[in-house]
């Protein structure tokens, strides 16, 4: 049984609120059945608008959204059968946990014993059995969150939308909830569209991530690819940490190019540069640059240590390298033979493969 890879389909969707500015521009996005897809981006990038269009609270200005091959732009939200978890949970404060969960079933005229069964199952799924008669205000933030998730799932929707559901939780709770939601998704195989601005959350939970900026999907790929192989400098900057050099291409071949910097020259991997003279931003992940490399690397430079910050499992070293005073290195704390002192000069090397020459900033 092959899964529908176009279960949710945004087809050339534009959205504008005021007729002057496009919040979402020409969005084309296919979400396959059972997928956990995350829309990631800074605030104002259009990701929540996309979610609201899918939920039915906003209408696309142009284009069409398909759910299981049916256009849904003219279907009101309550007929779409899409579950939604809201940023502030949106639990009904005057109803008990049971009533909250029973609400979507009651409006669907489900039998009473069937409701009981489903509510029971949904609550045990989020390990909140026995909380039926509590009011939302009597629950902790994490528990409310789980009730909200259970409520969005209790009526077996085809798609569940989550709008920054963990934004209000503290760090530890947020992390454990990430795993919990991920496991629920794996167990019941529902399609999840998740919106967040927290890249860590996106990377741990998703099958695929759509990085939004300026109303456009900048890159849509799996978490590892997104991190290792960003296609443009926005994605490289937004996901994880990143050392950049601005320069100009002086020589280019198939998989390596020479980039002339302000003071120096490096070899890089041409991603979005095509010809000599192109302006470019070269991006290198901190962990790809090694100190005193043992193996031969095709970029070898010397930098001066400007700052050393202890981070527990690793130490961050800020270097002044090739005119970039914010060149970050991550040194695992096991390699304690290194002499990391302020002002010392150290050798740093990296492969041209890992230095991605992207579009100029």
């Amino acid at each position, binding site marked *: 049984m092959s899964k529908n890879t176009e279960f949710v389909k945004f087809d050339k969707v534009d959205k504008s609120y005021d007729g002057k500015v496009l919040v979402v521009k020409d969005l084309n996005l296919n979400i396959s059945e059972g997928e956990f897809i995350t829309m990631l981006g800074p605030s104002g990038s259009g990701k929540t608008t996309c979610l609201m269009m899918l939920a039915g609270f906003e209408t696309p200005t142009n284009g069409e959204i398909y759910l299981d091959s049916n256009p849904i732009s003219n279907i009101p*939200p*309550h007929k779409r059968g899409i579950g*939604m978890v809201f940023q502030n949970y949106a639990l009904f404060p005057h109803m008990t946990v049971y009533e909250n969960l029973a609400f979507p079933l009651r409006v669907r005229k489900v039998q009473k014993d069937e409701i009981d069964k489903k509510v029971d199952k949904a609550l045990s799924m989020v390990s909140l059995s026995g909380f039926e008669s509590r009011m939302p205000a009597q629950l902790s933030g994490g528990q409310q969150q789980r009730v909200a998730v259970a409520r969005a799932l209790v009526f077996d929707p085809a798609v569940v939308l989550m709008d920054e559901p963990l934004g209000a939780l503290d760090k530890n709770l947020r992390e454990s909830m990430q795993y919990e939601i991920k496991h629920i998704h794996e167990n019941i195989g529902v399609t999840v569209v998740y919106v967040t601005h927290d890249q860590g959350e996106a990377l741990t939970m998703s099958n695929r991530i759509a990085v939004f900026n300026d109303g456009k999907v900048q890159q849509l790929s799996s978490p590892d690819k997104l991190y290792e192989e960003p296609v443009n400098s926005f994605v490289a900057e937004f996901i994880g940490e990143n050392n950049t050099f601005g320069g100009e291409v002086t020589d280019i071949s198939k998989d390596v190019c020479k980039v002339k910097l302000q003071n120096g020259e490096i070899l890089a991997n041409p991603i979005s540069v095509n010809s000599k003279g192109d302006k470019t931003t070269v991006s290198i992940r901190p962990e790809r640059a090694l100190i005193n490399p043992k193996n031969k690397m095709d970029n070898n430079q010397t930098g001066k240590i400007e700052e050393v910050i202890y981070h527990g499992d690793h130490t961050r070293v800020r270097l002044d390298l090739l005119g970039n005073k914010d060149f970050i290195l991550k040194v695992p704390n096991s390699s304690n033979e290194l002499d990391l002192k302020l002002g010392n000069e150290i050798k740093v090397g990296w492969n041209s493969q890992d230095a991605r020459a992207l579009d100029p900033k």
Partner: protein
Amino acid sequence: MSSETKQILTTDGIPLEISLKKAERKNKIKAFLLVAPLLLFLIITYIFPIGEMFTRSIDDKMITNMLPKTFKSMETWDGKDLPSEEVFASFLSDFKILVDKKEHGKLAQRLNKEKNGFNTITKKLFRQVKRNKIDETQSIKEQIMKVHKRWRNVEYWQAIKRTAPPYTSAKYLKAMDMYLNEDNKITQVSEDRRIHRILWLRTVEVAFFVTVFCFLMGYPIAHLLATLPMKYSNLLMICVLLPFWTSLLVRTASWMILLQQQGVVNDFFVMIGLVSDDNRPEMMYNKVGTYVAMTQILLPFMVLPLYSVMKTISPSLMRAGKSLGGTPFIAFWKVYFPLTIPGIGAGCLLVFILAIGYYITPALVGGASGTLISNQIAYHMKTTLDWSFASAMGLMLLGGVLVIYWLYNKLVGVDNIKLG
């Protein structure tokens, strides 16, 4: 066990409770001093006048002080046959003092209220006393009985005895169109004289419908206020509050201009052909006028509490209701509406309580069929000068409001009220 009951001491060895009290005392005194002026103000302007009103409404001491000896000697009288010689003698001696003080007229007036006919016989007795016709060496009972045949009627003596207690509920009964008859039984006044009960019912009816109209009009306005973007909602808020800032009298007068038979509304109706020129409907000096003007005037009191409650309801709740499959109506009815109940309660209570004591508007636009109990109170305050009756009605109004408040507390819970 012993460690549990042991007194906890501070590090200096003082019992913790005492130490805490000491530390808090200064703050408590400060806090009390801060509220003291308000407390004093409340006592002077609120509790004291209400107490005064209450005593006035039940006060019947005047006659008790006029006939002290009579009432003393009447204590042993069984009230069936004519009283004894002793009672007549003490009545005469009381009466003589009153004649000296020229207060016998007041007595006659008061007794006449109790039973018709006292005026004449008191005057007759007064003439006899003035001419010194009564010989105190003879039987006083016989002589007084000879003054007028009514003095021989036991009913009149019973009436005097009824006025003995220094307090009376007569004013309250009167406000309910009832009185105490000769047998000390509560009786209704004859049908053609029942006016107060109609007024009470009308007051409650007007207050109720004004509350309903205010709710029906205020709810959508408040919802709009709470959901519109800031720049529009501010404008709308000003529109709601503008009448609030205009003088009550001006607003009522403008309603008079609008609603009268040759007024703007009627002109408009005639212009669009809704009514014919010679058949203009009366919209003023009746209940319609009272309803329209009072609803408009009291509307902000409904809108503001509703608005403050609606403002706190997250729009995502309605969205959640819809996304979970509820139609817009179900989402509203099951989710939004129950959350606005505190505001509805506060608004309705406020409007109802204000409406039930409303005075100026019904007085100006109400006409005869639109006047309320408050107008009656004002009438007795200013025209008949029966302040004790006005006080009694005022207190009954206050009592009614307290009953409504109590009912509301039972049904909804006062903790649920949100005034803003």
